[in-house]
């Protein structure tokens, strides 16, 4: 009997839910007149705690530097920019709930993306279903662009699989006798980290460079010596790590301890962070990484960003901060061109349309996007040369010569 009753309730409720949707506060509703005068509210959820908190913080700083600059110049369309941050604790449940509340409760005018491919997909789902344009600084894994999102754009030069393109080109073009013959790959089980390493692996394997070790380790891994032992046993010319920070340091140390001396060592993400050289002591020399941004580049606004960052946070800017700043620059250009910054469908459509068509001058160089929101440029390759980060590839952007083979660590 209670069962029957509850079944009755559920059917009638479902019916009601389908028909009665009297909420007028979703985006697309006419903005109240007062809203246009107030500040431009931008809602952002970032992993300030939990597994991804490290890069999350960099991106937050990038957003703040951007907002600071825009406000110093008088704001967006004459309105001050106000950033509203939420901590998602590296949890997709929270990410959704954050964007849900930012969009429908705080009624923000715009949203910026969170960090990590793992959090970008749930976040983009929310933004997409409320029709908000979604420019994100960190969802580079190719799966992000396979979800059919129509308003998502990745604000960096290239997606994960293409990060090492310049390095692959360079190695393949080396004369036969200098070319590496074997390569070992170790990657964190993470869509982004694996994307970078496998992008390179597939290119090199095609060119005949043999894969001798291909390891995947879960994020819980703290001890890298056994993985290094496997690599040591295979004596590869090339060691490639699909890494974030913690594991890149662990791997470098373990490889040193087990006396693996490859001709080239490449790690994603880790070496681009300021803490890296200290964490691995002298071993950073000649390590290469793909990087979407360089402190020394002369792209639009880069110098200003680096200076303002130092002023606000007292240290050198990093790639995460640059990516956050890039998001700001793209939105800024789109808002200025479209002449609106509100959550109405009309305005968000205009912004989306503009971003899809345009090319944007940013601190990571000119950016444009394909119809899935993928950026169409390429990452540079950085290398530690004489203890400093230098851009070594491609030719036209290089600040120092590519050193190969690397010195022993």
């Amino acid at each position, binding site marked *: 009997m209670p069962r029957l009753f509850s079944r009755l309730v559920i059917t009638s409720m479902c019916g009601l839910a389908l028909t009665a949707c009297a909420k007028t506060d979703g985006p697309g509703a006419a903005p109240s007149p007062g809203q246009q005068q107030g500040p431009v509210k931008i809602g952002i959820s970032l992993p300030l705690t939990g597994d991804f*908190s*490290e890069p999350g913080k960099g991106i937050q700083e990038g957003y703040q530097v951007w907002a600071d600059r825009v406000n110093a110049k008088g704001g967006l369309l004459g309105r001050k920019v106000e950033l509203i941050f939420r901590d998602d604790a590296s949890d997709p449940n929270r990410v959704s709930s954050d964007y849900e509340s930012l969009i429908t409760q705080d009624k923000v005018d715009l949203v910026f993306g969170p960090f990590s491919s793992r959090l970008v997909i749930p976040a983009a789902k929310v933004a997409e279903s409320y029709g908000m344009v979604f420019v994100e600084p960190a969802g580079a894994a190719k799966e992000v662009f396979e979800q059919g999102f129509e308003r998502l754009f990745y604000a960096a030069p290239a997606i994960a699989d293409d990060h090492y393109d310049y390095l692959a080109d360079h190695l393949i073009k080396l004369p036969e006798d200098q070319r590496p013959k074997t390569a070992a790959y170790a990657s964190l089980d993470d869509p982004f980290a694996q994307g970078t390493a496998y992008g390179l692996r597939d290119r090199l394997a095609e060119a005949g460079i043999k894969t001798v070790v291909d390891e995947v*380790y879960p994020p819980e891994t703290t001890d890298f010596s056994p993985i290094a032992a*496997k690599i*040591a046993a295979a004596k590869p010319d090339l060691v490639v790590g699909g890494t974030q920070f913690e594991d890149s340091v*662990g791997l470098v*140390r373990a490889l040193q301890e*087990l006396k693996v001396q490859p001709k080239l060592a490449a790690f994603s993400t880790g070496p681009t962070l300021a803490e890296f050289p200290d964490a691995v*002591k002298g071993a950073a020399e000649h390590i290469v990484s793909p990087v979407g941004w360089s402190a020394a580049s002369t792209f639009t606004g880069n110098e200003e960003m680096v200076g303002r960052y130092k002023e606000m946070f007292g240290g050198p800017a990093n790639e995460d901060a640059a990516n956050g700043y890039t998001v700001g620059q793209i939105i800024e250009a789109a808002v200025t061109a479209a002449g609106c910054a509100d959550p109405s469908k009309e305005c968000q459509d205009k912004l989306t349309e503009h971003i899809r068509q345009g090319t944007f001058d940013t601190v990571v160089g000119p950016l444009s996007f394909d119809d899935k929101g993928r950026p169409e440029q390429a990452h540079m390759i950085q290398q530690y040369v004489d203890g400093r980060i230098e851009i070594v590839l491609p030719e036209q952007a290089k600040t120092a010569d590519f050193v190969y083979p690397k010195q022993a660590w």
Partner: protein
Amino acid sequence: MSLLLQGLALGVLTGGLYALLSSGLSLYFGVMRVVMVAHPAFLFLAAYLTYTVHTVFGADPFLALPVTVPLFFLLGVAVQRLLVARLAPENVPMMSVLLTFGLALTIEGLLGTFYTGSYKSVSMEYATRSLTVAGVHLPYDKIIAFAVAALTLGVLFAVLVKSRFGQALRATIQHREAARLVGVPTERVAGYGFGVGLATAAVGGTVLALITPFFPASHWVWIGKLMAIIVVGGLGSVAGAALAAVLLGVVEGVVLVTVDATWATMMFYVFLFLTLLARPQGFFGGRLAHRF
């Protein structure tokens, strides 16, 4: 073959470290039937303190120990007196897990607030070189970790076996009521037992800081591993946990070099479940573990 040997050697060294890291857990369980989920969080608290001593004063990380060991001892006594002892006795095994879980969250939150979420690491010159014996590389940092673990555990055993306090502690572990009847101040001893347990966390944290970078949420990874070790060893048995730690370290090392990292971590849980099915009281635990 040499790869297998290498895996074996690394496993033994890592196992030694696991023994140090899990010894505190056995003590808490012994004296109070408490599963201290916050133990790994305290390990990283110690790691952060070591980091501060190292970066602010430029001192060798091990010089942090004279500060952190007594501090953690007092902290341990305080945790026992102010928190654990307040639980209703019939609820201790279950409620203490939740209590210490709350403690772990609090520590993580505070670490994140004071040190931010960034990775920190302490790296010494000697931490990247290794000793080569018959083609097998033994990293110095792992040798140091093993040596420190062996030394600490040696001192711990000596204290437990030789000193009056150790006798009282063991009596409390074996049979609390009987110990009280023969005049052991079990309440105070339990407090000191916690103190000693956390003191091992201070040492363990310093060693961890040397060999791996860390951030506030790092402790989660360790909870499952260390718990599996103390169950396999037999809850409450310090010696059992030490042996189980080396055993699991070796299994992990060998599986890592022959299969992969996922299976290596899985081994901890496989052994945990096998232990429960075959011998629920663990290899070295007595009647005690079965009851609780």
